[in-house]
């Protein structure tokens, strides 16, 4: 195993009732790598992301995040990390949701600092310092005291990116970060992600923005029917796909 692997997913199986959504997925993401996951709806991309971020439990397989084992097989049985370990692992990754999921009753500042103070035990001053830095980076330095409902969708998504970055995670997952946004608002969000990529932030991005994936990602993974159909360097995969299914999917863009 590569020592520099931040995310390791091995032979991941996941079913909802009788429907097998993930049929033995293997995915490794190295430090500093940007991986885009593309594919048709229902192909298992979001489920894969939800399994990696502990929102769904897998049926079998192995997941390691930043060197900590989230779950692995113990003989025939799958074993998850205990509660304390889970909480630690959760502080090592960030997740950006499609529809932001900001806390509407908290100001922008509190959205970002609340978990720093009450989960990671940082002081208020430390948390505020981190928050101010992040908001500056997101171009939202004057919005600290605003509430989410007073921000545009694009601004809300940038706040949620700041929230995901606050704990200084080893990897950030994006679940279709621009799908809920009007086209003119996606630009700012994509720019922020592009900046993060240039800083070599490790990222896994589920997206339908093909041009963006091609330009920003190092590697693209094409998923369909619960399996990884094809993966490879971003530019190659988009311009010269090998599998017939990838070709058909990309032809729609």
């Amino acid at each position, binding site marked *: 195993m590569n020592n520099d692997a931040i995310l390791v997913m091995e032979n991941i199986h996941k079913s909802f009732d009788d429907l097998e959504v993930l049929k033995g997925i293997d995915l490794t993401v190295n430090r500093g790598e940007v991986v885009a996951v593309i594919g048709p709806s229902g192909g298992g991309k979001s489920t894969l992301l939800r399994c990696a971020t502990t929102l769904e439990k897998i049926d079998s397989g192995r997941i390691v995040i930043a060197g900590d084992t989230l779950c692995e097989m113990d003989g025939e049985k799958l074993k998850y990390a205990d509660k304390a370990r889970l*909480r630690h692992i959760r*502080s090592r990754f960030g997740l950006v949701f499609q529809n932001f999921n900001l806390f509407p009753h908290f100001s922008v500042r509190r959205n970002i600092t609340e978990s720093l103070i009450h*989960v990671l035990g940082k002081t208020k001053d430390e948390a505020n310092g981190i928050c101010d830095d992040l908001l500056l980076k997101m171009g939202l330095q004057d919005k600290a005291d605003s509430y989410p409902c007073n921000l545009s969708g694009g601004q809300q998504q940038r706040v949620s990116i700041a929230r995901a970055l606050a704990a200084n995670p080893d990897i950030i997952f994006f679940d279709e970060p621009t799908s809920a946004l009007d086209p003119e608002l996606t630009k700012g969000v994509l720019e922020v992600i592009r900046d993060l990529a240039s800083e070599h932030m490790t990222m896994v991005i589920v997206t339908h923005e093909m041009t963006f994936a091609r330009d920003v990602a190092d590697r693209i993974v094409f998923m369909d029917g619960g399996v990884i159909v094809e993966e490879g360097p971003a530019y190659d995969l988009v311009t010269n796909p090998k599998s017939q299914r990838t070709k058909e999917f990309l032809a729609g863009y």
Partner: protein
Amino acid sequence: MTKELLISSCQQLLSGFEFTLGIFAFTLIFSLPLGLLVARGRMSKNIVVASLVRFYISVMRGTPLMLQLLLVYYGPYYLFGTSTGGIKIGPFNYRFIAAIIGFSLNYAAYFAEIFRGGIQSMPKGQYEAAQVLGFTKSQTYFKIILPQVIKRVLPSVANEVITLVKDTSLAQVLSVSEMFFIASSLASKQVSIMPFLVAGLFYYIMNALIEMMITKIEKKMSYYS
């Protein structure tokens, strides 16, 4: 009706109003947290707990509150032969205590259904965001979910609170000398409807004040939508 009579009637009604206020306040103090607990039981994954709680809510909502008050008051005697005459907590006799118990059990059932609606209307994403940020279950509940639920259920809770003010008059079946009980006895003594009208005015003033307070709270919570 002479002026003196009116003043002394008002004084007596106001002394009864103390009991009305007492029933009202104690009922809220007990039934609001109890309602939250009942709501959790109603949503429990344990089928036995959920069904029992569902039955409890069904009975509380499906039978007259007046009957429930009578059962709480006379129940101990008929079930266990216990005399309740000597029971006292501080200045409160068992009549008053039974009224509080009856009202609290009944209102908790209504509040529980309101809270359940509020809790179930919360988007799943709020729980998920809290989870990946590492919040514990209780942190998620008290910091993220409950404050938003309170805003959502406030109008329905206000409805119940206003109804409670008027429902306190049912305590007269236990001969608790609350305002309506006093009004009845004054009315029969004076052979006049006046005491009832004055009592009605007092109920109305109390509810007008409550409405004002609720409007204030709603305004305070309107900083987000």
